């Protein structure tokens, strides 16, 4: 297969936006001295927000990322994307540093400043993070920014020395001149100040900081990016830049924001979605020392106090009479599965079709199998509970919130308050985990905080408890799959009717027009639709029943793949065993036209010693799935003894194309595996007559240190098109787990989470 040049193949889709370099990159000086490269990361959401928000022309240059080099040589990199653990705080600077040749130790990283950048524009800074797309989508632009700065610094130095820029090179924060005799005395460790015009055949050098003032006056140069063979940073594991402050308690998360006069708000939410306050009595709440106010808003009753504990005690002391509405109209898990099963017996909207599956199945004598799979609601449950600080002053709104989508919140808040979006200044501290929760399209918790601030007239920090979080909705939807497979003589599927029942993630969101076409929400079928296995099944359909329930739903790490991979990979595994074939060999045949799936599968099989004798009592299961542009195979090795599952190790092979930061990719695979295992073993949000049963980590259980398998991650070598890493580690782990459990116990698990009584 012809190797592709990742430097050419991984860039932003510039074609759509007809950009020239002037449109997305500007240079200049900043207040206080220094060189600024300001650049725009065009995003789909940015354009949507331009259409959505009042007063936004869409034509004005609106930079959302910056590189600033100070006279003190400090390299300030201001990101257009947010750090939620996935590592962009390090990866994006790596891209820039590859071209910039700066002193890595002088890099300081920040999230984009709040909404208003005085240097260049009156428009708000815009950004959104998600989809495992950051590294791929920013690959060219961050490198260009670095190369632009480097080129301008060299030009400034060359001008001062009166030499050609070609005679200069850069290293570790210096521009160095080689004299024609070839002498290069420009060791960064060397003694002589390069700024002086030394003559007589010796080399000269300037610190970047000495050149920034002049460089900032130069026109934007054309730059040529370095070839992969020249790379010194990209492709080599780096230490995370945010680690130091995350190990010494200094890292600031949204929940840590504090300033004088700030009141903490805790909200009593209705026990069912859509419930309302009928009456309430706050007399006792107001007697709690530290409680300042109690206000009613659309989402419940808010208690405002000097500190969290007082607010929490105040909430406990409220007496509220809730209007719960009609019980039968609320979601009840038991009823839900019954209704979903009924729906799955009927034809849905066809999302993908080949041949005539009904006819094909009708003609077959045997065997045909019918299988039902059920996956429950799942909460994201990041370690940092949701929170949002709001300061309203006249026509200005200042917000502090760890969020994936500041852009959407800005537009929503501006619309609600009737102010211009650029008057909504949004600070983004570190996110204490997100997994999609902090990307809420409805800006739910941010709007709740804004409402409290507006109604109370106070500066407030809304803090959710763990119970608020687990019961708060915006879950990965519950899905039911009903699959009917006709098996050919050789044991491979020849007819496949796949029905999916579940709620739509994107209907009634700003992304609806893009993801929901002709009533079909792509995320409900993504991973069944487009499955490599179906390409060799001559008669098949994928059908969808979209349900509407009162439970709010939201993308959860790996989105549609979180349910589809489980079904596809456990069903394929079952078919392999029915055919009397080894599960890896069976997949190799089906995936022969899919080299990237194959490469991941074969690497994981090799590294896990698949097919070789295992220690007594140990069993393996495999799953391979492509998502977000990457191809991941996982082999789970476990034992089941005394009604306990012990997962010994997981071998994970990922083909993500170029791995900019290999250790970062490994860390994301480890992370996705733990996240997915937790869900497969324990994850379940259930409702009884509209009320969420779970509340904290005792009944919404998490995988812990003593259950942690040894995880070995292998990167498929090569330079194929780059894919993501934040999410693709999640989909294969649940099916690999249940496939291993089948090998161990002979029982097929088709409903998650795994229940011991179904196994032994």
């Amino acid at each position, binding site marked *: 297969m012809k190797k592709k040049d990742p430097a050419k193949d991984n860039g932003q889709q510039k074609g759509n936006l007809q950009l020239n370099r002037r449109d997305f990159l500007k240079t200049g000086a900043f207040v206080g001295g220094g060189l600024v490269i300001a650049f725009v990361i065009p995003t789909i959401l940015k354009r949507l927000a331009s259409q959505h928000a009042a007063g936004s022309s869409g034509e004005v240059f609106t930079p959302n990322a910056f590189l600033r080099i100070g006279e003190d040589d400090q390299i300030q990199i201001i990101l257009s994307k947010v750090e939620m653990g996935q590592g962009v705080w390090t990866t994006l600077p790596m891209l820039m540093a590859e071209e910039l040749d700066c002193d890595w130790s002088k890099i300081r990283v920040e999230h984009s400043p709040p909404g208003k950048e005085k240097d260049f524009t009156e428009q708000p800074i815009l950004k959104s993070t998600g989809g495992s797309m950051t590294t791929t989508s920013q690959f060219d632009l961050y490198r260009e920014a670095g190369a632009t700065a480097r080129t301008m610094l060299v030009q400034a130095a060359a001008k001062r020395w009166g030499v050609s820029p070609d005679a200069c090179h850069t290293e570790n924060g210096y521009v160095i001149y080689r004299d024609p005799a070839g002498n290069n005395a420009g060791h960064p460790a060397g003694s002589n100040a390069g700024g002086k015009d030394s003559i007589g055949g010796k080399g000269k050098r300037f610190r970047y900081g000495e050149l920034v003032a002049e460089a900032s006056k130069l026109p934007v140069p054309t730059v040529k990016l370095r070839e992969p063979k020249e790379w010194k940073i990209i492709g080599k594991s780096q230490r995370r830049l945010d680690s130091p402050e*995350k190990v010494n308690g200094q890292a600031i998360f949204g929940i840590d924001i504090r300033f004088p006069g700030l009141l903490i708000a805790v909200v009593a939410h209705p026990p069912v979605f859509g419930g309302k306050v009928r009456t309430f009595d706050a007399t006792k709440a107001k007697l709690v020392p530290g409680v300042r106010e109690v206000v009613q808003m659309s989402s419940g009753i808010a208690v405002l106090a000097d500190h969290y504990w007082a607010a929490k005690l105040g909430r406990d002391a409220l007496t509220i009479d809730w209007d719960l509405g009609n019980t039968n109209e609320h979601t009840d898990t038991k009823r839900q599965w019954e209704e979903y099963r009924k729906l799955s017996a009927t034809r849905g909207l066809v999302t993908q079709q080949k041949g005539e599956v009904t006819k094909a199945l009708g003609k077959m004598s045997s065997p045909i199998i019918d299988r039902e799979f059920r996956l429950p609601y799942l909460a994201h449950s990041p*370690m940092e509970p949701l929170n949002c600080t709001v300061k309203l002053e006249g026509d200005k709104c200042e917000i502090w919130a760890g969020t994936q989508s500041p852009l959407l919140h800005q537009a929503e808040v501006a619309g609600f308050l009737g102010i211009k979006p650029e008057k909504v200044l949004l600070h983004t501290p570190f996110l204490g985990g997100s997994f999609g929760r902090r990307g809420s399209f409805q800006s739910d918790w941010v709007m709740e905080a804004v409402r409290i601030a507006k109604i109370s007239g106070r500066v407030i920090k809304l803090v959710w408890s763990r119970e608020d979080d687990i019961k708060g909705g915006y879950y990965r939807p519950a899905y039911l799959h009903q699959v009917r497979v006709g098996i050919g003589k050789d044991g491979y599927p020849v007819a496949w009717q796949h029905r999916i029942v579940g709620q739509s993630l994107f209907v009634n969101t700003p992304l609806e027009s893009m993801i929901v076409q002709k009533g079909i929400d792509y995320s409900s079928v993504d991973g069944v639709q487009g499955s490599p296995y179906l390409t060799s099944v001559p008669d098949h359909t994928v059908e969808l029943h979209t349900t509407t329930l009162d439970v709010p739903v939201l993308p959860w790490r790996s989105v549609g793949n979180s349910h589809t991979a489980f079904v596809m990979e456990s069903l394929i595994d079952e078919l392999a065993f029915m055919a009397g074939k080894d599960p890896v060999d069976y997949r190799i045949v089906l995936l022969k036209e899919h080299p990237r799936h194959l490469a991941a599968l074969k690497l994981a099989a090799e590294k896990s010693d698949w097919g070789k004798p295992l220690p007594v009592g140990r069993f393996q299961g495999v799953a391979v799935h492509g998502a977000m542009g990457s191809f991941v195979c996982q082999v789970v090795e476990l034992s089941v003894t005394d009604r306990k599952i012990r997962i010994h190790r997981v071998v994970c092979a990922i083909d993500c194309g170029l791995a900019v930061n290999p250790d970062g990719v490994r860390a994301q695979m480890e992370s996705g595996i733990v996240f997915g295992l937790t869900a497969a073993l324990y994850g379940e949000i259930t409702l009884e007559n509209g009320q969420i049963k779970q509340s904290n980590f*005792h009944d919404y259980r998490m995988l812990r240190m003593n259950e942690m398998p040894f995880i070995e991650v292998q990167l498929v070598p090569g330079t194929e098109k780059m894919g993501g890493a934040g999410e693709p580690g999640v989909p294969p782990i649940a099916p690999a787990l249940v496939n291993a459990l089948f090998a161990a116990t002979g029982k097929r698990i088709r409903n998650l989470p795994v229940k011991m009584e179904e196994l032994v």
Partner: protein
Amino acid sequence: MITITVNKKSYAVDVSPSTPLLWVIRDIIGLTGTKFGCGMALCGACTIHLDGEPVRSCVTPVSHAAGKQITTIEGLSEGADGPESIGKRLQQAWLVENTPQCGYCQSGQIMSAAALLHKISQPTDADIDTAMSGNICRCGTYQRIRKAIHRAAGNKEGGLP
């Protein structure tokens, strides 16, 4: 008024004696390195040392801490946990192993790990399981935490194969 000692400094706080220490540390004194994750001693994000012992500050009433030495992650960073600087060694090991991801649970993880190494200087994997299983990491950094603990203990090769 209750007087408590945090990282060797004295504070007089005007709160009810049953107020959890976590909120006194975070909201009253303003040391935000100690985190809130569950409020029920299930997640370990609030772990501090009380006279060197690891406790979950979200369920420890402030009155219980009177007359005792409270050490938080900020104190650990200054070497408040003693001359062997176990806390600092752990922090350095954390950096080498690229342990944190979102970072929110890491203060509690390090506090629990420091308490472990003070008790057992060369912990086995089983010791680590026992000491660390009260600390949840939603980002799944457990493997690197384990490696970092072994590294800080001077066992660079330590840990599962």
